[in-house]
């Protein structure tokens, strides 16, 4: 059922060697490949197989859902709408990811639109990796979008990673935070060659006592371009922070625009942003431990994207 390319993609984007335990839904070339549900986690297809609805019962703890997508059909642009409804006081991990294998000249792409409704006091960790490979020259395109709605006291941790090989990526993340909720978004993107990646983020802190932390780490190699935009909008007494760092190597270009909007006098919003080459004191330190220049660069980048 899974061929060698499928296995390699699944291993890279979802760390899966075999079919996972618990609930899962693997989508290949726009169609359902295999699915499993559990007592607490239900997965249903939307009409016309346009996507899935994952419903997690209240108080479900220590369970995970894998929902990887793989693409290996030239010329296909697969758009999928996934909705996650996470019951009150549940504590779960969702592992998504998209792997593209491009063997031909035609472009291949995927737009995953993910909506999260996180119930009162529930916790979710969402891990998403994007990766493309293959000998073909067709463009690999990924345009993911996430929308997060946090109820009172809900917590979401989003780890969004684009590992490599993606020619064009345009990501949007939106979130609305209810009272006392917490959102942590960590985005890591590496681009090289002539790749382009844009990330747009709008986090709205609408509930009193809500907290948001947006961390972005970009590594821009070759002639690639990455732009990062993030807005924190505060409508209540709340705390928010944006930290965005870009390391430029070779001839890469970057635009970073963190922006803060306080529409409530008790909002505390901060940001720090930096763009630059690898700091020379970091390089000299690692070289003085016996690493070569190239080894030092790799270690620093590896840590930075960790």
């Amino acid at each position, binding site marked *: 059922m899974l061929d060698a390319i499928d296995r390699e993609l699944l291993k890279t984007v979802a760390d899966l060697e075999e079919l996972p335990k618990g609930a899962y839904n693997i989508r290949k070339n726009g169609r359902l490949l295999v699915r499993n549900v559990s007592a607490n986690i239900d997965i249903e297809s939307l009409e016309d197989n346009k996507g899935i609805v994952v419903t997690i019962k209240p108080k479900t703890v220590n369970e995970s859902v894998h929902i990887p997508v793989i693409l290996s059909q030239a010329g296909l642009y697969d758009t999928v709408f996934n909705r996650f409804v996470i019951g009150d006081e549940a504590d779960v991990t969702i592992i998504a990811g998209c792997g593209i294998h491009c063997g031909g000249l035609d472009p291949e792409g995927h737009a995953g639109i993910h909506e999260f409704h996180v119930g009162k006091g529930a916790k979710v960790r969402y891990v998403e990796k994007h990766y493309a490979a293959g000998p073909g020259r067709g463009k690999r395109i990924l345009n993911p979008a996430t929308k997060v709605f946090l109820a009172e006291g809900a917590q979401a941790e989003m780890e969004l990673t684009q590992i490599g090989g993606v020619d064009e990526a345009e990501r949007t993340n939106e979130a609305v935070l209810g009272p006392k909720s917490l959102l942590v978004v960590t985005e890591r993107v590496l681009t090289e060659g002539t790749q382009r990646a844009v990330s747009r983020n709008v986090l709205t802190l609408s509930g009193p006592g809500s907290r948001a932390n947006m961390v972005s*780490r970009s590594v821009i190699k070759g002639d690639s371009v990455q732009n990062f935009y993030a807005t924190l909008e505060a409508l209540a007494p709340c705390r928010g922070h944006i930290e965005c760092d870009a390391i430029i190597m070779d001839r890469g270009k970057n635009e970073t625009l963190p922006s803060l909007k306080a529409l409530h006098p008790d909002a505390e919003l901060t940001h720090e942003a930096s763009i630059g080459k690898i700091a020379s*004191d970091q390089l000299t330190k690692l070289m003085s431990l016996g690493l070569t220049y190239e080894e030092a660069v790799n270690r620093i980048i590896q840590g930075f994207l960790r």
Partner: protein
Amino acid sequence: MLELIDLSYVVTTEENGNGAGRRKIIDGISYNFEQGRFYAITGPNGSGKTTLAKLVMGINPVTSGTIRFEGRDITSLPITERARAGIAYSFQHPARFKGITFRDLLAMAAGTEVEEQLLALLRRVGICSLSFMDKAVDAQLSGGEIKKIELATTIARNPKLAIYDEPDTGIDLWTIKPMVRLLKREQQERGTTTIVVSHNRAFLEAADVILMINNGHIVYEGDLAGAKPLLTDLSACTYRRCLLEDQDVGCYR
């Protein structure tokens, strides 16, 4: 084991927009550091101590002169090669990283990731808190913490020549004596040739030889007793002269 022969380091400076000027930071230093001894280098701020240490590690390029290590000319060797030859340097202002932990640095320095060996290193350098190992070496570390990490990574190299650039800055009163003992023990048990740049009396007392640097020259070599007159002399204000034309901004000393 480390021989400096007529070593100079010159930088070009912008002088009030009158084009480029030249400033000798290290001015023809010749000195022979002997195998297995403990040296303390002291001298006023800005006298060239760090610059000299960085010339030895290969971080600053030599303008003229020669550096020999164990009889081999290393003047133009890159940092990596010098490190592999057995020279280690603890930075005065250690680098901070994102996403690199103390464990990572220690493993790179020691060339092993084996837990037992890393724990043995912690015991050797006297760091008792294990949770410290997985701390990120980032901007959140305190000044004293990062200096302890810096020192540990230098010792983890098992160097033939260890250079510590003001290892005691930011270190609490309770840790300075143990730190001096640690470096002495490394010197005595492993024969590590040790150079400590410091203004701290505890290190000056522990040293076999004291070198005093001023204006890029070695102005004294000998024991602590002999250094005392110069120590008081150099502490005289050197700022006044350069500030004469300026308005008096006050003296820090």
